């Protein structure tokens, strides 16, 4: 059971994440940014993930191979939302890619957040590499990888499962599939004969759990207990979390708003729960949300004043000249 402090921390982090996404969406519609993709509708699950994760720069910390909808996780891990706004504003101050890549494509070496790649599902296979390093190293650091439901059709999904179950080299990976029932416009049920992605993991002998990703308490618990297994038993576990996709697939897919009420909003749901528990009051929630919205607007103003990358900088960082510092 979550204590009140944690509950409030989660709620406030969800609020920040939502306000951030709202701002990024606005930017994609104005001249302040281009393509938007992100995670409104996934805040409940992704925030819990961020709260429970252990970011850092060593093998004793966790490694993160994220899907492009993990802003709420980054926020929960302590990311300054300004950084995400800088990325959306394609400024050189974008600390993840220097104005090179889309929003949501995080990368932060100090936190073992490896580059988010647009190539769907390759992260499942790449994750086995960081996990092998961690297995060899010992300790309780784990590798966490997230993906959507549709992407699990790529061979790389089962490649990851297979490589993480090699005899003697079972890997400490927490596989997370956020199932929002769609890949862009294609329904999960149209192109998947198995009703649960989790079934596939079972075929590889991997423990798996299905959870309502819009339910904070359930998500927190399943992540916490799965992490405990992965951290201590050094073997993979998969969680399939059913989540909402509140703003459609992205800024560029036809019809990107979902009709009001068609999908659960995890933020309102959690707010109502905490209201019901008497932990917060309605006005308090509204003011927190307003504050965060205001803050994101201020961040945008700040980011807009920051420099663009220089044209000739395209030639920077093609080749490294020195060895990276060791983990």
């Amino acid at each position, binding site marked *: 059971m979550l204590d009140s402090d944690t509950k409030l921390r989660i709620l406030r982090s969800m609020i920040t994440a939502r306000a951030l996404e709202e701002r990024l969406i606005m930017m994609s519609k104005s001249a302040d940014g281009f*393509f938007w993709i992100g995670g409104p509708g996934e805040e409940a699950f992704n925030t819990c993930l961020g709260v429970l994760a252990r970011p850092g720069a060593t093998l004793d910390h966790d490694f993160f191979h994220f899907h492009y909808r993990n802003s709420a996780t980054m926020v929960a891990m302590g990311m300054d939302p300004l950084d995400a706004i800088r990325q959306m504003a394609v400024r050189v101050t974008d600390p993840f890619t220097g104005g090179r890549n889309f929003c949501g494509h995080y990368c932060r070496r100090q936190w073992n957040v490896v580059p988010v790649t647009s190539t769907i599902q390759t992260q499942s296979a790449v994750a086995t590499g960081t996990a092998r390093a961690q297995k060899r190293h010992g300790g309780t650091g784990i590798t966490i990888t997230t993906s959507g439901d549709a992407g699990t059709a790529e*061979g790389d999904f089962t490649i990851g499962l297979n490589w993480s179950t090699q005899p003697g080299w079972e890997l400490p990976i927490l596989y997370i599939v956020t199932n929002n029932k769609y890949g862009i416009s*294609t329904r999960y049920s149209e192109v998947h004969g198995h009703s649960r992605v989790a079934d596939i993991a079972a075929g590889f002998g991997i423990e798996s759990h299905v959870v309502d990703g819009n339910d904070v308490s359930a998500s927190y618990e399943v992540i916490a207990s799965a992490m405990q297994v992965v951290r201590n038993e050094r073997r993979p576990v998969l969680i399939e979390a059913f989540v909402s996709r509140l703003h459609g697939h992205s800024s*560029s897919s036809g019809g990107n708003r979902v009709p009001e009420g068609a999908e659960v909003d995890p933020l309102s749901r959690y707010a109502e729960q905490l209201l019901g528990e008497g932990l917060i009051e309605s006005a308090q929630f509204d003011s927190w949300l307003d504050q965060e919205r205001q803050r994101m607007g201020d961040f945008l103003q700040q980011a807009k004043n920051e420099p663009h990358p220089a*044209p000739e900088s395209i*030639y920077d960082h093609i080749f490294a000249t020195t060895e990276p510092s060791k983990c």
Partner: protein
Amino acid sequence: MLTMAQAIRLALHYGEEHLGVTDIFGEDVGPPLGGVFTATQGLRTAWNSPLDERGIIAHALGLALAGQKPVCEIQFCDYIFNTIDLLKLAGNTHWTSAGQYNANMVCMTVVGAGIHGSVYHSHSFESIMAHIPGWKIVLPSRPIDAYGLMISALKDPNPVMFLYPKALIRTRGTEPLPGLEGLSESDLKKRIDAPAGRTLNEVAKLRETWQPQWPSGLTDYQVPIGQARRVRSGDDLTIISYARHVPLAELACRELAAEGISVDLIDLRSLYPWDRELVFESVSRTGRALVINEDTPVCNFGEHILREITEHCFYQLQAPPRLLAGADVPGIGLNPRLENASVPQQSDILNAARTVAQTVA
């Protein structure tokens, strides 16, 4: 006039009705979306595949082996690079089976930058593709060529890679499609563009009952694979290009003409086979050649053309032939300053053309 997306859609429709096309499939290719670039809206045989490029190419090859005529789509060429082995298989099927089987399939995918696509929606693919034997490769720059090349691709018994430039998909052509000369833009739109909606659910609902009103009069108008198009005639310099850089080069040519440089501008349209006769004839005459594309420069398709030009027109060359290509960098940055520095812009074309045209030994 129609857009390239409409032209492709119409050609595919013609293919379904008259050329035996059995399957048009890929990610989000079927209803309700009809392709992220709308090129497959309303088609009778279109369906949604799993999100799996390897599965898509393999499935198309299997369909072809069973005598079907599939058209598969890879949503962005940026995501085709996990299938190169399968493309090679399709390309060697006829040869390895000593002529028993042919991989009678078309694969379509969008290429190039120009829509703020960032690192993974800006790739070019023609150079690697041209290195895969057994395929024909086309890459139109105009709606009418897209139609004619698609018809040719569908009629060809071999695997054909149909590339098209994402930046030009919505641009209207200036030539009417043979057979549809009487149809207005808005009429065509009303007939074959699927209705829009504010939400995906609304879109799905609207399109559930929607049926395109395919115009009658479509013909099997073909652009023969291997036949380039002379866009402008000139005597001082030959520019060889394709795709998005054809209209850019055309604009540049006007400016160059004002400066007294008369350019022979060739739109290749087909990359394998390509129109060696037209190119050699032109370069032999002008003595100067510039190839323009936006792929990265090492093992760039333009280098192939230049190697052939140098071999065949060596004694006519009056200046070093040049390649104006994308920068040798691992990606196209999202910030427009980065993108503009990475793929040839109008000013780069002017500079390169002037250099080649004005060099004196």
